[in-house]
């Protein structure tokens, strides 16, 4: 008889806030922790690039063209003698920046528009929903390519293109969350005591829809990293000679029979970083919404 309450108390400590409980659930998920560790590793790599890369990523050497991995060049060299390891390390910056900045663009556009649609209802909702449907009807990458084509090829424009193309997903998610939260008693109560619409939206609704947005944002970073690599692979993202994993693969495909190391490492880096964000996103979803477990 005494064992039951003790076990129950250990499983759900009363003094923990919902946030702390979610954090506990997240920490227990090995996949999510693995993902987080790799993401942190890549962030450190991006921040410490000037100190940890063995060579200048832009320095060419005609005596070291397409050299296989060696002590001097651990991951080999590319078609104009640049060190692949240094370029992979510096390329982390473009990928991480593209992932984070484009998702920030999507969030800063999608959340206010989605909140307006969900909260205001009626014609603003109908109008926003139709525009969202129209954007979702254009496949994500094709829309991003079209934006990047008209804006001009550069990393900044690629991030804008990816961010704008991913915005409808956040509009739709925010709208759906607002629709379910705005009928809750505490929102009714906030309205009854005379709070303004803006205050209700920002103080009472927004904090309660952060969890699903956080999960979606993490998964969207993974999608944005692949999208940036794709645009750079097509020549619409980071422009040469600046290092980016996608543009490295674009060049590498022409030398695949003589210098496969040029393709293996940047691709593996994209895979690892995207996998890590996907694992972290899945873990966050399970931790923040126990119904998913």
């Amino acid at each position, binding site marked *: 008889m005494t064992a039951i309450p003790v076990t129950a108390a250990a499983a759900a400590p009363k003094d923990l806030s919902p946030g702390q409980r979610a954090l506990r659930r997240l920490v227990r998920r090995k996949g999510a922790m693995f993902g987080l560790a790799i993401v942190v590793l890549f962030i450190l790599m991006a921040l410490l690039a000037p100190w940890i890369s063995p060579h200048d990523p832009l320095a060419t050497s005609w005596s070291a063209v397409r050299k296989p991995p060696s002590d001097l060049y651990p991951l080999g060299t590319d078609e104009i003698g640049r060190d692949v390891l240094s370029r992979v390390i510096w390329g982390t910056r473009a990928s991480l920046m593209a992932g984070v900045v484009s998702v920030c663009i999507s969030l800063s556009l999608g959340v206010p528009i989605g909140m307006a649609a969900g909260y205001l209802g009626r014609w603003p909702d109908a109008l926003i929903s*139709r*525009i969202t*449907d*129209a*954007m979702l*009807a*254009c*496949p*994500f*990458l*094709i*829309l991003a*390519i*079209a*934006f*990047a*084509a*008209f*804006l*001009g090829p550069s990393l900044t424009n690629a991030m804008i293109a990816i961010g704008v193309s991913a915005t409808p997903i956040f509009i739709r998610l925010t709208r759906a969350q607002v629709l379910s939260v705005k009928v809750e008693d505490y929102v009714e109560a906030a309205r009854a005591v005379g709070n303004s619409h803006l205050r209700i939206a920002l103080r009472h609704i927004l904090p309660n829809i952060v969890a699903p947005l956080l999960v979606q944002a993490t998964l969207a970073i*993974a999608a944005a990293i*692949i999208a940036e*690599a*794709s645009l750079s*692979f*097509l*020549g*619409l993202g980071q422009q040469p000679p600046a290092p980016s994993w996608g543009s490295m*693969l674009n060049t*590498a*495909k022409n030398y*695949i*029979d003589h210098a*496969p190391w040029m*393709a*293996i490492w*940047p*691709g593996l880096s*994209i*895979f690892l970083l*995207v*996998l890590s964000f*996907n*694992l972290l996103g899945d873990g966050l979803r399970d931790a923040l919404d126990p119904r998913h477990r």
Partner: protein
Amino acid sequence: MFNYLVQRIGTIIPTLFFVSILIFGLQQLLPGDPALILSGEDRDENVIAYLREKFHLDEPLPMRYLYWMGNVLQGDLGESLRIQQPVLDLILQKLPVTLQLAAMAMVIALVIGITAGIVSAVTKDSVWDYAANVISLWGLSTPNFWLGIMMILFFSVWLGWLPASGYVSPFEDLKANLASMIMPAFVLGNAIAAVLMRHTRSAMLQVLNADYVRTARAKGLVERIVVLKHALRNALIPIITLGALEFGTLLSGSVLTEQVFSIPGFGKLIVDAVFNRDYAVVQGVVLVTATAYITLNLLADLAYFLVNPRLRG
């Protein structure tokens, strides 16, 4: 049925209207005067004047949209400045290649995704389930252009089994056609297989706990019949909609896959158009893609309506 059809078509008209505004609006993103940009490096005064008149560039924006939309509704998507051919003709020339690639990719995705999903659900929490989940995570995280390059390295460079790139029409040589398309189709189907696997697994897990499956087992039916006939049939219903939604992924993916394997399809058309600053082709491709996507979604909804007796009731 008729009422549902009318209602459903009613919802896609405004969507198509906004798609057209979005695509027309793309042109407005061009920095500077479109006539100057479109006239190329020579900037001939006569060409600029001709372009201004042709695209009604001196008219207000809403009027220009109406002119453009009027042409689109008559099947005129403009003319490629580079190839001097109507955009619609170009798209119709390239579309069959991409459709073959997409169809083959979808077959591969369905076979791998649904089989892995069933195995994973039936053997829940086993090594097989774990392996299927790992494969699905691999599929979702691998950039398909990298997978394509790695497959070329393995199957073309090292083993010499398949051609690294190029395209042969199936009407010329079917065997060579299949040899050139199998790797791109696998690369394209890989990510969709992962999505289908996840959905089939969760749909099967739901269905396997349903009363009618328990009844089928209680009648003494063999497990294979229970899974394939009673459970899978019902679990597959939501997969129909998903298949249509994944069409967008197929077209996006084909852009990169066709680039890696040098396949002269729809995807390569848009990339070449981007680099040739052939904006009418870019707009045309996006418009046709979006319209096809919306139409497929409509058909998927109708199929869903037809196969689900509860909706018809």
